């Protein structure tokens, strides 16, 4: 079975600053990969290269068979299949919760307005926010905002979801509601790449954990072996600080 995501020798620099030096990784269909590492290690940049929110300077990224470095590939089409959830939610403040979820399917001409409404309500139900459909983001709590953001991505029926520190901007009491939605997604067979500091989530939901530092993958393995028995000194050092 072919891998869902294939990253080969990825490189990314911001001016003189090499953020990703050389990364290779394959993610299987329905696999949940958790990326951990100190801040500045390049994990967010790595994630943003997977849907080309950051341009790719070297190497290849192949998602669902589409080579993102190939100029002839319509990146907008590929992105429909890759949901992304941001640390700061990035909900559209001028749209209601339902409006946020409906916008892309309608704008992209995938669904009619009636279909999009139906689909939007279904997605909001999935994240437990049916009652907030007509509420603007300003009136939602952080946890609710992030769940709407997840619903917004799901509306396009993606088969890969990228999470960029989805709980880092949340008050502690709201972390679990977002993680619960993510866990449900994972159980439903979604292919996921999650950048997070939530070691509990990594252990419970992750199929594989990757430790990044200095633009490289330093160590990878099952959550059990990597979190319980890290081998690399840098991994040991990092885990001692966060656990």
């Amino acid at each position, binding site marked *: 079975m072919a891998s869902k995501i294939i990253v080969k020798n990825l490189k990314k620099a911001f001016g003189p600053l090499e953020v990703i030096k050389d990364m290779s990784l394959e993610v299987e269909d329905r696999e949940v990969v958790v990326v951990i590492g100190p801040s500045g290690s390049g994990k967010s940049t790595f994630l943003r290269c997977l849907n080309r929110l950051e341009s790719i300077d070297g190497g290849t990224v192949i998602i669902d068979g589409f080579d993102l470095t190939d100029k002839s590939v319509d990146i907008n089409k590929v*992105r429909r299949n890759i*949901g992304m959830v*941001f640390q700061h939610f990035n909900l559209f*403040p001028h749209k209601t919760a339902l409006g946020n979820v409906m916008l*892309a399917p309608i704008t992209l001409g995938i669904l009619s307005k009636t279909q999009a409404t139906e689909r939007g309500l279904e997605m909001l139900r999935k994240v437990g926010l049916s009652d907030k459909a007509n509420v603007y*983001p*300003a*009136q939602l709590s952080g946890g609710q905002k992030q769940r709407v953001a997840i619903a917004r*991505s799901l509306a396009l029926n993606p088969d890969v979801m990228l999470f960029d520190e989805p709980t880092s901007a949340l008050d502690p009491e709201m972390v679990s509601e977002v993680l619960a939605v993510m866990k449900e997604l994972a159980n439903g067979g979604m292919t996921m790449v999650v950048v997070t500091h939530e070691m509990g989530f990594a252990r419970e939901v992750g199929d594989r954990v990757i430790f990044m530092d200095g633009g490289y993958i330093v160590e990878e393995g099952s959550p059990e072996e990597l979190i319980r028995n890290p081998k690399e000194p840098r991994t040991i050092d990092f885990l001692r600080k966060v656990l």
Partner: protein
Amino acid sequence: MKALNLFTQHLPTFLKALAITTYVTVISLIFATLIGIVFGLFKISKKKPLVLAANFYLSIIRGTPLLVQTLFIYFGLPMALGFRWPWATFYWRSQPILAAIVIMSLNAGAYMTELVRGGIESVDPGQMEAARSLGMSYGQAMVQVVMPQALRTMLPSIVNQFIVTLKDTSLLSMIGLRELVQNAKIIVANNMEALTMYAIVGLFYWVIVTLLSSAASNLERRTTYGK
């Protein structure tokens, strides 16, 4: 009272002049907004020629007085290009309405360009990223996500630009457009009542500007969504 008599006596022509002033301002502001959106997008574009084109336009308009622009466009261009600015043939006969609108649109367009650029830049870049990550094109993301938010924050500034343009139309008396000032000049030429007539003109501007200013500060107070 003499001033009041003068006011009521000349009210019909002043109302007509006020209509011209308002018409030219409103139509010009609409075009200026379109110009502003186009050049504002040029300005934030990554394509060098577009940025240069926008900068050239801005520097010409902002670097020269409106009066010079008016004279250049109304008297200069027809000489160079061999055409005549048409006069309105409809309701406001013998009025250089088209030239007036072109002059004011080009002028206000430059200032609107800066407003649009500032408005777009005030929107969190995460908004564009979120829209793009959902598969929207740059244009779709601009229209559906960034612009609505940018326009909303720009609204008070647009009203302020409206005020500026409204007052600037007084310079169009130079090309014989019978707006408020030109109307007063014509009357003063007959009755020599400069003090009263120009005070009346000032009053007209003051009333409109005051109304618009309070509208602008009202808008400023309501710029958040769902609150």
